[in-house]
């Protein structure tokens, strides 16, 4: 039994392995998100036209830059598995932490299910192109989830090294498409005439409505902090990986909008299932088509892979603190992964992937993510108030506080309004779910929590206490 912590002063303990570096953190964050460049973001164009699509791209980019900065500061200090859940536990309180943990697990598990559905859809498309109609998507959906769960079960280093490779390929594919178009590999020239002829077909309300789908470009970058307990140097690696990740995504998002809007008429782009792959098809270049198809599959797998990693860490952390049954807080003695949490979340992902429509699954994921971002705003304010800069060491200090927090809160409010315009019923249903879960936690579950043990950071007493 290798690597079990054991010295004379302490009892034998199993811990998660510290084997990751900044590149793995980058691969985790970008891996979860990059699929949003390959599909989904383009519904923003359908809601409000090309200009609205670009505004949504950059406004959402601003929102997520704030998220990345805030997250980098807090998580470089609260370096524990569970990410925002652990932050909420230390900075706000148990009920907030329980809710944030649920936001994380729901957001990532739903996104994993959506990715598995997409794998099935993509293979069905390819089968159709080769003359085979009526492909059964279920075996490929199940295989994607089972394979990635197995990979996660076997160890975090292999899991995120695999992510690093396939994310690098997927990002390179976007760059190659951009340069190929610039150097004349496309049969169709870029055409931006719709920007002047139909700048805002649905007016300013179209911009607000498009914001919902602009989140797709970056949704999940905050997942980097789930690796906090498995990176060799969290105070250095987490800010590096996260900030490099958001920069990568800003570049990828802008390139994607530019290429797709220039090659595909906005009326079609707004409804396309795989816009980057479709843009490659428009170029008429077979090599670009193959490359972008590989990029689409890799981005989808990388996202599902990162989601399994993050959802299981959040679930594991809640189990470890007795917010959920302690059975989930187990670490595998050989692979050093939260193996029970990984296995437990497999059937849940399968149920959503096989039984729920894609848009509903994604909407629930986005709503859970938005609730998490809203939490980050007052979490950041409380963190700076309780532990000012000169009281504890931070791996990264984000600039212009509280401006990013205020911007994030305003943009979250706008995004909630945008979601309410299109998916009001789901928003209300989601809020009801979290209220009922909170009541269960407060009146039933909290009695089992080891209240003293859960606060583990060696920090001084917070100011005002």
């Amino acid at each position, binding site marked *: 039994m290798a690597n079990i*912590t054991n010295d004379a002063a302490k*009892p*034998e*303990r*199993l*811990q*998660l392995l*510290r084997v990751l570096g900044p590149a793995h953190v980058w691969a985790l964050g970008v891996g979860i998100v990059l699929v949003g460049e390959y599909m989904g973001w383009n519904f923003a164009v359908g809601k409000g036209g090309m200009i609205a699509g670009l505004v949504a791209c950059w406004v959402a980019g601003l929102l997520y830059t704030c998220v990345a900065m805030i997250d980098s500061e807090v998580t470089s*200090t609260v*370096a*524990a*598995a*569970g990410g925002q859940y*652990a932050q909420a536990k230390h900075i706000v309180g148990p009920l907030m932490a329980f809710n944030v943990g649920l936001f994380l697990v729901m957001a990532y598990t739903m996104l994993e299910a959506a990715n598995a559905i997409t794998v099935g859809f993509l293979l069905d498309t390819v*089968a159709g192109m*080769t003359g*085979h109609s009526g*492909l*059964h998507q279920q*075996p*490929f959906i*199940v*295989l994607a989830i*089972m*394979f990635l*769960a*197995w990979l996660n*079960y076997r160890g975090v280093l292999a899991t995120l090294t695999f992510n690093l490779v396939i994310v690098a390929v997927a990002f390179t594919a976007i760059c190659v498409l951009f340069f190929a178009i610039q150097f004349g590999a496309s049969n169709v020239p870029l055409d931006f005439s719709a920007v002047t002829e139909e700048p805002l077909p649905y007016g300013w309300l179209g911009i607000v409505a498009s914001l919902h789908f602009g989140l797709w470009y970056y949704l999940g970058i905050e997942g980097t902090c789930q690796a906090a*307990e498995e990176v060799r140097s*969290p*105070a250095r690696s987490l800010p590096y990986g996260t900030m490099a990740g958001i920069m990568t995504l800003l570049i990828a998002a802008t390139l994607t909008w530019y290429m797709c809007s220039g090659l595909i008429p906005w009326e079609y782009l707004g409804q396309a299932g795989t816009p980057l792959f479709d843009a490659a098809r428009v170029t008429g270049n077979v090599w670009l088509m193959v490359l972008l198809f590989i990029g689409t599959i890799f981005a989808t797998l990388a996202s599902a892979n990162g989601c399994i990693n993050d959802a299981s860490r959040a679930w594991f*952390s809640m189990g*470890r*603190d007795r917010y959920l049954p*302690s*059975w989930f*807080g*187990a*670490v*595998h*003695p*050989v692979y050093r992964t939260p*193996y*029970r949490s*990984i*296995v437990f979340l*497999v059937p849940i992902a399968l149920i959503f992937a096989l039984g729920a429509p894609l848009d509903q699954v994604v909407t629930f994921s986005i709503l859970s993510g938005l609730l998490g971002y809203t939490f980050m705003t007052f979490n950041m304010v409380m963190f700076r108030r309780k532990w000012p800069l*000169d*009281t*504890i*060491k931070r791996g990264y200090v984000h600039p212009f506080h509280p401006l990013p927090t205020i911007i994030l809160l305003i943009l979250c409010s706008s995004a909630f309004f945008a979601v309410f315009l299109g998916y009001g019923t789901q928003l209300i249903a989601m809020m009801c779910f979290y209220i009922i879960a909170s009541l269960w936690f407060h009146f039933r579950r909290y009695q089992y929590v080891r209240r003293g*043990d*859960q606060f*583990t*950071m*060696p*920090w001084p007493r917070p100011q005002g206490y």
Partner: protein
Amino acid sequence: MDIWNFLEYGAWALSVIFGAFLLIDLIRVDTTYDNDLLTSSREGEIEATQERHTI
């Protein structure tokens, strides 16, 4: 039967293999090791020993 039909059966077979590995290994570990050891991970352990917060 074309290649896509074979791929469908192959995907089912691989799914069963991966699923069986997960379940069998989980049961094996749970019956081999003491549950107190498996759930012995503590959040603060790493932080306290390696990332001391000193200004």
